[in-house]
């Protein structure tokens, strides 16, 4: 099915003073139905990219979109509201509705257990309650394109899980575009079908999750917690780049995978199999990007 382009970015440069914050040369296109996970370490340019698309920072280059600012729903990393009144009045004014007359809004408020917070002023809310307040309003916008910038930061584990579940079910049958900035890869496993990998302002790679996995990791990967014993046992097998606390074994073929699994079973070693692991994609994409850069 042909999808409509929502945003197309090309030759984009953003500078903060003399510092280069973002440099996107090859086209990055976000289409209807895309669920783009934007990943990268701090200072990679993730939030700057969102701000550029929203026109909140000045940039050079091209960001093409048919959407107006009001057609892009955004949960920013930091969201502030007035402290002069209870949150229910802020919500009603922003959404141009009455909570008592809007069933969809009441459902969302109930789902996020926000009823008691409606009487409180924004400054009196906890970090998690503040996040939920913005999320409810962002979801109510029902925009063609939505950004969530570190939407689950500051939330406890249970609320985070619940929120991700809600986001997954909310966007499941919708054809809208979704861009999620997150440091929690397990959230993106559930939410994203594409990845935009950024590092120090540069695009390491952009594409479908499965394609990127095949490109950088092969067919499948077995992931184990690192130990000297495992290191010695698996020394002769092809390894993928991984965070220090993990060992990632490449399974280029079914035979190799079977061989590895039997070996691990024989030694009673725990492992995880994946063909979409975002952390391993990210680590290997970055490693190859810099290796290529060094060779060039």
């Amino acid at each position, binding site marked *: 099915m042909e999808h409509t382009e929502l945003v197309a970015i090309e030759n984009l440069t953003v500078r903060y003073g003399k510092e280069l914050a973002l440099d996107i040369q090859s086209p990055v296109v976000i289409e209807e139905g895309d669920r783009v996970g934007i990943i990268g370490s701090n200072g990679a340019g993730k939030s700057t990219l969102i701000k550029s698309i929203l026109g*909140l920072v*000045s940039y050079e280059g091209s960001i093409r979109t048919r959407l107006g*600012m009001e057609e892009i729903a955004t949960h920013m990393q930091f969201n*502030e509201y007035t402290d*002069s009144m209870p949150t229910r009045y802020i919500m*009603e*004014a*922003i959404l141009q509705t009455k909570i008592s007359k809007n069933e969809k809004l009441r459902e969302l408020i109930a789902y996020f257990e926000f009823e008691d917070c409606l009487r409180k002023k924004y400054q009196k809310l906890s970090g998690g309650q503040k996040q939920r307040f913005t999320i409810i309003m962002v979801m109510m916008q029902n925009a*063609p394109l939505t950004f969530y910038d570190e939407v689950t930061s500051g939330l406890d584990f249970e609320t985070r899980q619940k929120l991700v579940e809600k986001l997954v079910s909310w966007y499941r049958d919708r054809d809208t575009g979704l861009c999620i900035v997150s440091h929690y890869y397990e959230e993106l496993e559930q939410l994203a079908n594409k990845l935009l990998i950024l590092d120090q302002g540069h695009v390491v790679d952009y594409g479908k999750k499965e394609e990127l996995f095949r490109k950088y990791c092969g067919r499948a990967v077995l992931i184990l917690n690192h130990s000297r014993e495992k290191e010695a046992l698996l020394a002769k097998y092809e390894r993928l780049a991984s965070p220090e606390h993990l060992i990632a074994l490449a399974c280029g073929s079914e035979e190799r995978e079977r061989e590895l699994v039997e070996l691990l079973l024989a030694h009673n070693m725990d492992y995880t199999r994946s063909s979409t692991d975002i952390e391993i994609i990210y680590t290997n994409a970055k490693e190859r990007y810099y290796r290529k850069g060094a060779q060039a």
Partner: protein
Amino acid sequence: MREKRRKLVTWSMIVYELRNVTGNPFIHIFGVGMPVLMSILIARMAVDQMGAAMARTVQTSVFLGIGVLIPMATILMGYSVMQAQDLERGIPVRLQLFGIRSSVTICSRVISQLIFMAAAFLVYFGVGASALELEAPCVSGAILYGVCLVVFSVICFMMAHAIAALIKKFSITYCVVMILYFACMILGGMMGVSYENLSSPLKAAARLLPVTYFNRDFYTIWIGDSYRFGPMLQSYLFFGAIAGILLFIALKRERVRK
């Protein structure tokens, strides 16, 4: 798919901004409480000094002069401080991301400020009429008082918006508008030193402020006596020009930033 654009003025945004204004306790203190108290205290003190025969004249003159503190406190001080605080915290940007254009916010704020100011004047006149002996105005005097207050309020709004947009910091904006507020009160003759007792340079500065004419001359206009409007008009033009220039610079800087 394109959403319908919001109207420039909506009742819900006006109510929201009105809650914003009334949620600020300083506006109630400086914009309502202080003018009411000051007008009663100063008017009674002046009558004690000048004698009962002058009671109506003195009390009306003081009352009309102190009334100008209401737009100064609610708009010049209250609005600029609120706007600077909002800018510092990124609230206008947050609202824009929800599709509420800054023009909608500004329009709603103008209307809510005017509503609050009208309510403040109702209280002011209500308490004044019951606590003081006020001279009844002639029709033209009452209309002119209202027109001058509205024009002065608009200028205050322009100045407040510009100061907040240029400074963008709550603390510095608060400091600047407090200095302006008390400077206007002192030069306008509301802090115990009348215009006649000011030094020549200060007199020259006072003549450029509409506040001076509210405090010193409005009784004459109120009762319909003949009055030379030239200097007062000049003060409005001067004050308006300063506010206009500041607003122009602020808007231009905003456009360059975008």
